[in-house]
C-alpha cells in the first residue's frame, strides 16, 4: 500500500512538472495577496479528468503551509443538507483537499435494531434515510422475508412497487429543489417542494404519516390502499408531466444553470466504480447499473422502464439523470396502477402477520396469534443474508444476521449516502471553492442515512 501511494504521488509530480504553470492573477487585499486562476474551464476539466483513481487527500503536499488556508464548511452550513462538515484546504480559491467529517447525527440505529423484534424493525430503519423512508422499510422487510423464506401475495408486491416509486419521485424532487436552491435557483426550491406535497399527501392518506411510515412490514404492507386511491394516483400522474416540463423550461437550457453545473464536480466511471459510488452518480458517468434491472425485487422487472444514463459525470448530468428517473418512475407508477392485482395485501401466515382485528373476537387461535406476535414477535431461522434495493440515492443494502431468535443478531444498513460521500474529495480536488456547493448538492446526501 505504501508503495502504491508513493507511486501515485510520483505520477502526480511528473504530471505537474510536465504541464505548463497555470496563469495566476494576484489580487492584493487587506488580508494579503490572493491568487486566482486566470484560465478556467477547459484546463480544469482536463485536470479533473486526468485525476488518478486515488484520494487526493492522501497525497503529499506540494505547497507550503503559508499558502494553505483551511476552511471549515459546516456542520451548520445551510447547503450541507444537515450536519455535514467539510474540512476544506484552499490554495487561493482552488480547493486542494476536502475531508468530509461526519457522525454528528449518529444515533446508534444499528445497535437499536439489535434490541427490536423483527416486527418492529421497520420503525427503526424508516428513520434512516428520511427522504426515502419506504425504501428503507422495503429493504429491511425483504431481508427478513428472505431469511424466513416466504412469498408474498402479488398485491402486496405491487403496492410496494407503487409506493417506493412514488417515494423515488418525491425524493428526487427534493434533490432537484435543494440542488436548485444551493446554486441560486430559488424558484426550483419552491416548485420542488410544492409537487412533493402532493405525493406526501397521498402517503399520509395511505399510511397515516407523511414520513417514517412503517408501512412496508415483513410479510406485506400494513394496510390496504384506501378507497379512491386510483384517483389520487391519477391526479399525481396528471400533474407531474406538465410540471416536469416547467422545470425543464426553468433549468435545462438556462445559461446560468449550465454555467454553474456543466463540467463541474466531474467523476469518471472508473473512479465511481472504484469508490463504491452507486445510484444517479454512477449512472451519470455512463454506467447503466440499476438494481431494479440487475437484481430485481418485488417483481419490478415485470414493468417496462428504462435506465437513464449521463455521459460526462458532472453536476449537470446528475441533474438530468434525476429528472429522467422521475419520468421513468411515473411510467412504472402508471403501469402498477393500471394492473393492480386483487387479493391480500399481506401474507396469511399467521405466525408472521397478525390476524385482522375482527377475527380476534371470534377465534381463540387468532387471539393467541395476535398475542404471540405482539409480545415476543416471530422467530426467524438462523442465517445471514444481504439484500439491496435501488433507493433514490443508490444501492441501499441490508445485511441481516439472525441467530434463530425474535430479534436480529446484527442488522447493518449499507447506506448509499455514506458511500457516495466518498466521491466528494475526488470531485472537488483542484476545483474552485464556489463549485463545492454545486458538487455537494448533486451528491444529494441525506445525513440521517450517512450517520444512522
Amino acid at each position, binding site marked *: 500500500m505504501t508503495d502504491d501511494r508513493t507511486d501515485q504521488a510520483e505520477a502526480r509530480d511528473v504530471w505537474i512538472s510536465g504541464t505548463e504553470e497555470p496563469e495566476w492573477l494576484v489580487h492584493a487585499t487587506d488580508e494579503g495577496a490572493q491568487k486566482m486562476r486566470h484560465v478556467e474551464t477547459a484546463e480544469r476539466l482536463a485536470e479533473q479528468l486526468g485525476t488518478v483513481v486515488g484520494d487526493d487527500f492522501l497525497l503529499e503536499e506540494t505547497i507550503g503551509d503559508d499558502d494553505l488556508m483551511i476552511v471549515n464548511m459546516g456542520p451548520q452550513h445551510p447547503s450541507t443538507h444537515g450536519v455535514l462538515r467539510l474540512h476544506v484546504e484552499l490554495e487561493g480559491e482552488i480547493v486542494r483537499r476536502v475531508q468530509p467529517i*461526519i457522525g454528528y447525527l449518529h444515533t446508534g440505529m444499528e445497535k437499536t435494531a439489535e434490541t427490536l423484534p423483527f416486527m418492529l424493525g421497520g420503525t427503526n430503519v424508516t428513520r434512516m434515510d428520511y427522504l426515502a423512508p419506504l425504501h428503507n422499510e422495503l429493504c429491511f422487510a425483504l431481508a427478513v422475508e428472505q431469511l424466513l423464506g416466504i412469498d408474498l401475495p402479488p398485491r402486496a408486491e405491487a403496492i410496494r412497487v407503487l409506493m417506493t416509486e412514488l417515494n423515488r419521485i418525491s425524493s428526487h424532487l427534493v434533490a432537484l429543489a435543494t440542488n436548485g436552491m444551493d446554486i441560486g435557483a430559488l424558484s426550483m426550491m419552491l416548485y420542488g417542494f410544492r409537487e412533493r406535497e402532493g405525493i406526501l399527501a397521498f402517503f399520509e392518506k395511505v399510511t397515516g404519516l407523511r414520513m417514517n411510515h412503517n408501512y412496508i412490514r415483513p410479510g406485506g404492507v400494513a394496510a390496504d390502499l384506501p378507497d379512491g386511491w386510483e384517483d389520487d394516483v391519477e391526479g399525481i400522474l396528471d400533474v407531474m408531466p406538465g410540471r416536469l416540463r416547467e422545470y425543464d423550461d426553468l433549468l435545462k437550457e438556462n445559461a446560468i444553470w449550465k454555467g454553474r453545473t456543466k463540467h463541474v464536480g466531474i467523476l469518471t466511471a472508473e473512479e465511481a466504480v472504484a469508490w*463504491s459510488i452507486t445510484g444517479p452518480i454512477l449512472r451519470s458517468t455512463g454506467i447503466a447499473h440499476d438494481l431494479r434491472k440487475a437484481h430485481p425485487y418485488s417483481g419490478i422487472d415485470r414493468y417496462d422502464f428504462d435506465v437513464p444514463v449521463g455521459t460526462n459525470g458532472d453536476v449537470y448530468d446528475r441533474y438530468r439523470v434525476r429528472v429522467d428517473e422521475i419520468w421513468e418512475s411515473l411510467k412504472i407508477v402508471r403501469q402498477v396502477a393500471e394492473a393492480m392485482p386483487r387479493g391480500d395485501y399481506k401474507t396469511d401466515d399467521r405466525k408472521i402477520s397478525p390476524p385482522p382485528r375482527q377475527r380476534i373476537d371470534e377465534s381463540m387461535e387468532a387471539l393467541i396469534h395476535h398475542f404471540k406476535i405482539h409480545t415476543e414477535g416471530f422467530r426467524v431461522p438462523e442465517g445471514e443474508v444481504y439484500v439491496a434495493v435501488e433507493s433514490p440515492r443508490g444501492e441501499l443494502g441490508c445485511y441481516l444476521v439472525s441467530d434463530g431468535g425474535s430479534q436480529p443478531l446484527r442488522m447493518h444498513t449499507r447506506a448509499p449516502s455514506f458511500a457516495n460521500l466518498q466521491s466528494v474529495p475526488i470531485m472537488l480536488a483542484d476545483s474552485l471553492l464556489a463549485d463545492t456547493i454545486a458538487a455537494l448538492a448533486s451528491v444529494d446526501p441525506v445525513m440521517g442515512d450517512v450517520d444512522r
Partner: protein
Amino acid sequence: MSRPLPDDEILRGVLEGFDNVEWHQSRGQDVLEVRPDDLLAVAGAARSAGFEMCVDVTATDHLGRREPRFDVVANLLSIEHRRRLRIIVPVEFVEDQPPSVSSLTPIWPGANYFEREVYDMFGIVFEGHPDLTRILMPDDWVGHPLRKDFAVGAVPVYFKEGDGA
C-alpha cells in the same frame, strides 16, 4: 478431501488455487469463507474475476456464541455479470489486543469508509488502511458500541445542577 464447489466458471476462477477457502450458499447467495491470511489474495482474485465494486464491509460480533468471535463481511458486486459475492473472514479476539485483518483498500479504494466504520464500531484494525480513524463516534470515545459487551444506555448522563443524588 472434497469440498463443495460451485457450478459456474466465475466462482471457480476465484476459488482456484485456494485450498482453504470454503464456498457455500446462504439463502441462495454465494458466500466464501476465507481465513485472514488469504484475504488479500482471494480479494484480488475476485477483483480479477469481475467483482469490480466492493459495495459494503461490515462485521458481526458472535460473543458467547462461537469462536472466533468476529466475522468481517465484505459484499462484492459485479456490474458486468450482474451478480454478488460475499466474503466472510472470521477474526480471533484476544483480550487486550485489537483484532486485526488486512485492509481491502489496496484492491477497492471504496472500502475506505466502511472499514473506518467497522473500526469505529467493533475496534477491528484493518492493516494497510490509509486513514484508520473513528468516523461516526467522537474521536475521544472509549469503547466500540456495536460490540455485544457494550451495553445499551451505558453512557452516563450528567446534569448541570444538583449534586447527582
